[in-house]
């Protein structure tokens, strides 16, 4: 018996490192090579070869470029500062105080993060209209929307770490003679600093590459690198100039992402062995005032734009009604298809994109978890879409697949969405694969299971739920995706709901606006519900960030 079993196991090991793992490594690698690496190389080539080094230098030293760059950086820095100002107290309250409804507050604060950019832009447009201040198309509007979006990032990254900090470290400092302020300055703050820096970097990255918000709320005079790439490539068809901007964008973003990844790693080191400690009771007037104030600010910041969006979408003339929603069934003169058709298209694209991302991600995750040089390379490669902005990616497809008629294919949008969603699938499934104890495989093999059976009976049940969660997030991202789509959607067949919102909002007229707001509500609800369902299934192992 033993004599028979030993060769069987050896054979199964040999087989496992053979056929299947070659596919598991090969397919995702090819996918990334064709749909990520090639388009980026095409942008690179276009910017250097197409334009010529002289032109590149000319453009980079022009005053127009400089003002765009400074505005891009300036608005991102201002957004980071404001986001920290609003987000840190919320993170503190949620992490440290024992308050009723903290789960609701936490969920509420995170909602904006999953909302599509066009929906957020529409919400702020509605809010300004409702409150009656003319902030539409202003710097303040951009900042407000960015804060709304990114408070979730600060609350999640910093708050999560803060809550996990052992309070006894602070108590130990106090027992050793440190006043509460000194203990905060000497113990808590140094522990938080790298995490705050990491969160700031992530927020900066999001704001630096922000596209929909700036395009809709900033207006034509407020240009960032992203909107300029879009303007040059889509409206003026000046690919060379767009490519140079994309190159600058790419270099900056990759450098920042690498920095963010390092902070994340340090953070995960710092959070090792963390303990849940008792939260502080609200047993003094000062504490109650502070916590209430922060909670009210959080609710206003998050709820006001969403409430305004819903209210304004229902406003018809001087009263309320559902006519804007009814109009979603009609194709106006401005759109190639009725909004409801665009929405159907978005949902279909989301399903296809999620399926592609899930298939590629499942294979890729198993290859990454197995390790080896190929696996490590794939792991790095799979992070690239996270670091590259959707706009750069969409532009890369324009340039890279120009020769093929691929761009007019209905597949191009869902494939781009799949690329953008892939990191979410991997973030969910790679840890799941890694957490499978190799002794389970050995035990199954010793019980007579062949490699295919082991994958089906041991691996699959353990990775199924994380895979579904990751694919669900990929679908949520796809439904709201605007940056890449705005480069790739051509004609009626690939016109998505976020495109419709953008088109409707960019034209004056109450009726169009109402329609845009109603469609935004529907998109927002779809995505929020999807995220809510996924959040409930999430087992803390899956992180959006």
């Amino acid at each position, binding site marked *: 018996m033993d004599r028979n079993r030993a060769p069987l196991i050896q054979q199964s090991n040999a087989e496992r490192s053979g056929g299947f793992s070659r596919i598991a490594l090969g397919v995702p690698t090819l996918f990334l090579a064709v749909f990520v690496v090639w388009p980026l190389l095409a942008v690179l080539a276009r910017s250097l070869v197409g334009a010529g080094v002289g032109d590149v230098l000319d453009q980079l030293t022009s005053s127009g470029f400089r003002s765009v760059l400074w505005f891009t950086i300036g608005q991102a820095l201002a957004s980071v500062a404001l986001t920290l100002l609003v987000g840190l107290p919320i993170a503190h309250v949620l992490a440290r105080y024992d308050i009723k409804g903290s789960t609701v507050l936490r969920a509420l604060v995170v909602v904006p993060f999953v909302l599509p950019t066009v929906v957020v832009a529409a919400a702020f447009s509605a809010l300004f209209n409702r409150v009656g201040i003319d902030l539409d198309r202003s710097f303040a509007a951009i900042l407000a929307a960015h804060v709304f979006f990114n408070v979730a990032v600060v609350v999640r990254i910093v708050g999560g770490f803060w809550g996990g900090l052992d309070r*006894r470290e602070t108590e130990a400092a*106090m*027992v050793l003679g440190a006043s509460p302020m000194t203990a905060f300055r000497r113990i808590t703050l140094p522990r938080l600093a790298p995490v705050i820096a990491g969160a700031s970097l992530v927020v900066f990255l999001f704001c630096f590459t922000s596209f929909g918000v700036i395009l809709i709320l900033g207006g034509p005079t407020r240009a960032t690198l992203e909107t300029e790439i879009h303007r040059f490539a889509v409206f003026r068809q000046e690919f060379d100039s767009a490519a140079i901007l994309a190159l600058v964008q790419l270099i900056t973003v990759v450098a920042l992402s690498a920095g963010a990844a390092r902070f994340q790693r340090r953070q995960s080191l710092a959070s090792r062995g963390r303990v849940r400690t008792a939260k502080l009771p609200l047993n003094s007037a000062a504490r109650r005032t502070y916590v209430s104030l922060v909670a009210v600010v959080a609710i206003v910041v998050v709820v006001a734009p969403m409430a305004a969006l819903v209210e304004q979408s229902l406003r018809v003339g001087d009263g309320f009604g559902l006519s804007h929603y009814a109009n979603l069934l009609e194709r106006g003169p401005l759109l190639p298809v009725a909004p409801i058709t665009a929405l159907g298209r978005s949902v279909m694209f989301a399903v296809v994109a999620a399926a592609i991302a899930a298939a590629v991600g499942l294979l890729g995750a198993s290859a990454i978890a197995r390790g080896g040089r190929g696996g490590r390379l794939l792991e790095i490669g799979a992070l690239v879409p996270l670091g590259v902005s959707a706009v750069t990616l969409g532009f890369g497809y324009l340039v890279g697949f120009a020769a093929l008629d691929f761009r007019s294919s209905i597949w191009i949008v869902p494939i781009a969405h799949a690329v953008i969603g892939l990191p979410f699938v991997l973030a969910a499934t790679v840890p799941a694969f890694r957490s499978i104890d190799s002794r389970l495989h050995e035990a199954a093999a010793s019980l007579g299971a062949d490699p295919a059976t082991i994958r089906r009976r041991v691996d699959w049940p353990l990775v199924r739920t994380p895979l579904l969660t990751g694919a669900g997030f990929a679908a949520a991202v796809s439904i709201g995706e605007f940056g890449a789509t705005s480069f790739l959607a051509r004609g009626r067949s690939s016109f998505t709901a976020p495109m419709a919102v953008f088109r409707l909002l960019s034209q004056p007229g109450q009726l169009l606006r109402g329609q845009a707001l109603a469609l935004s509500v529907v998109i927002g609800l779809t995505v929020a519900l999807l995220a809510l369902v996924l959040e409930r299934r999430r087992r803390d192992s899956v992180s959006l960030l």
Partner: protein
Amino acid sequence: MTLELADVSVRFSDTLALDSVDLSIADGETVAIIGPSGCGKSTLLRAVAGLQALDSGSISLAGRSLADVPAHERGIGLMFQDHALFPHLDVAANVSFGLEMGGVAAKEQASRVAEMLSLVGLDGFADRSIDALSGGEAQRVALARSLAPAPSLLMLDEPLGSLDRVLREQLTADLRALIRELGTTTLHVTHDQTEAFALADRVVVLRDGRIEQAGSPSELWHRPASVFVAEFVGHTNLWPNPMGGTDVVPLTALSIVDSGQAGDVEATVTAVTFREGRHLVESRRADGSMASFEADEAPPVGGSVQLRLDQAKVINLST
């Protein structure tokens, strides 16, 4: 310095963590508080340290009420369970933290840190990072940190809780020597009666926030105030007394009689464990109560034994 707790109560929502506790600790005395988890012993330490507000009662140190003294002005050393070392500071910075807060000059800090590290047997560890320490080393750094500012009262919360048995025994001995040498008043919390008996002059048994009994280790063993205390300090033979109450029968009160002779007690052997040169025999009497004793020869498991009972050693607890 003398520590005095008078009628101290702490309430957590609907449970009383501490229920009218009165306790007095003399200058230089080492007192251990033992009890099962959740009995309120950690809460008691936190209350004394000023990390937990009282619902009623008062605490005073050296005759001075601590009511309005915040934690950072009490000058009490507290060594936390699992140590709570500052992970972003190295060993020296951890140990000198309390000195720095007390405004000790930098040069003095350095020499005091070296002295403390030497005291706990960690010479040369000053520049180590906290991550690089083993469990035993972290425990010693935590001790050095709480001792460095020369606190008037040292409190230890399960100081050896997370260590393995061999290390515990070694560190218990080290700790006892250190406390005796420094003469610091010490309040020590543990769930392990062996550790408490090894370290303390006086042991307080806490149950559901109330003091069940306080006394020397020998008093608790020989005159437990209740079945709870008897079981907690390690008695296993608790027999119902036909005249009422419970008889606590120490291991040493029972001995096996030569085969063929009649004893005072008959029991069936359920397990035999070889321990430190003798056999610990667990057996049960007809009514199911436990009769454990030590024997040179191991009786067969499942067989019946005749035991002699030394009535003088039996402790009767009339309930």
